[in-house]
């Protein structure tokens, strides 16, 4: 009982334990594995190593159309694709993917364009 009293009085004067999540967002730790991202898509050579090594088979590589697709709901954030990638196209971000209403795949495509035009965003 005296031990518990110590905790009760301690809690009155200590900083609060709760992280006020939606209002105060905590930055992810260094090298945290939150989600994967085709960050440097311009370097991709479509070698299929990421898709081959992916344990849940969440990545599909379309070499003909120069497109990589990721099913973010199937991804388990293991980071194997980032390790396997010979051109370091894939990066692990600390930030996690946001919840969504519908299943949508993330497609990263290479398009040949004039160097000055900024890439189109949808």
């Amino acid at each position, binding site marked *: 009982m005296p031990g518990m009293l110590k905790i009760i009085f301690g809690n009155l004067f200590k900083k609060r*334990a*709760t*992280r*006020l*999540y*939606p209002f105060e*967002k*905590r*930055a*992810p*730790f*260094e*090298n945290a594995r*939150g*989600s994967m*991202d*085709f*960050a440097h*898509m*311009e370097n991709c050579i479509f070698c299929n190593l990421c898709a081959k090594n992916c*344990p*849940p088979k969440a990545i599909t590589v379309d070499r003909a159309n120069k497109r990589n*697709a990721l*099913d*973010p*709901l*199937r*991804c*388990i*954030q293991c980071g194997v694709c980032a390790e396997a990638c010979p051109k370091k196209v894939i*990066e692990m*971000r*600390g*930030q*996690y*993917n*946001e*919840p*969504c*209403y*519908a*299943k*949508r*795949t*993330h497609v*990263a*495509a*290479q*398009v*040949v*364009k*004039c*160097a*000055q*035009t*900024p*890439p*189109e*965003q*949808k």
Partner: protein
Amino acid sequence: MGIVEKSRLKSPWILHYDCSSCNGCDIEILACLTPYYDIERFGILSKGNPKHSDVLLVTGGVNHRNKTVLKNLYDQMPAPKVVIAIGACGSTGGIFHNCYNILGGADKIVPVDVYVPGCPPRPEAIIDGVVKALDKLKHLQNGTWKEPETGPIVVETAVGAKPAPAAKYANAAPAPTLNSQPTNKEA
């Protein structure tokens, strides 16, 4: 909006059912209740009784034995209800996609409103998911719900040009690269 509708949004009660998850997601849901995340701040209470609950959290892929249990629980819940599939397995079957006893995600049995990605998702993501589900519930009650888009999100990178720096995916959080990320100095 009547008082019942309003209170439902202000204090949703949650029912959690573990289909065949690995426990990771279940423990993260429990972690939401603890002082660190404390979802009771938002009036969200975890209840064991389906007849009192408004939100059903499903973790893990559905298997042949518990599909009837999940259907039963869903049917017992009172009418305006939302279902949240937690984690990779709850959404699609995840890493268990080639296990013989797994049918797939929870949407094979019950209609799923919100998918929370991650294996397992962090408690923050689960809170986000519940908030998103409540948003949908609000729109459903007001009759202003619009069906979400289902097509793929395409990000095009011009070869030879500099890539676009800011948010890459339309519905994703701003994407800081690993180098520019603020690191956490908390103990």
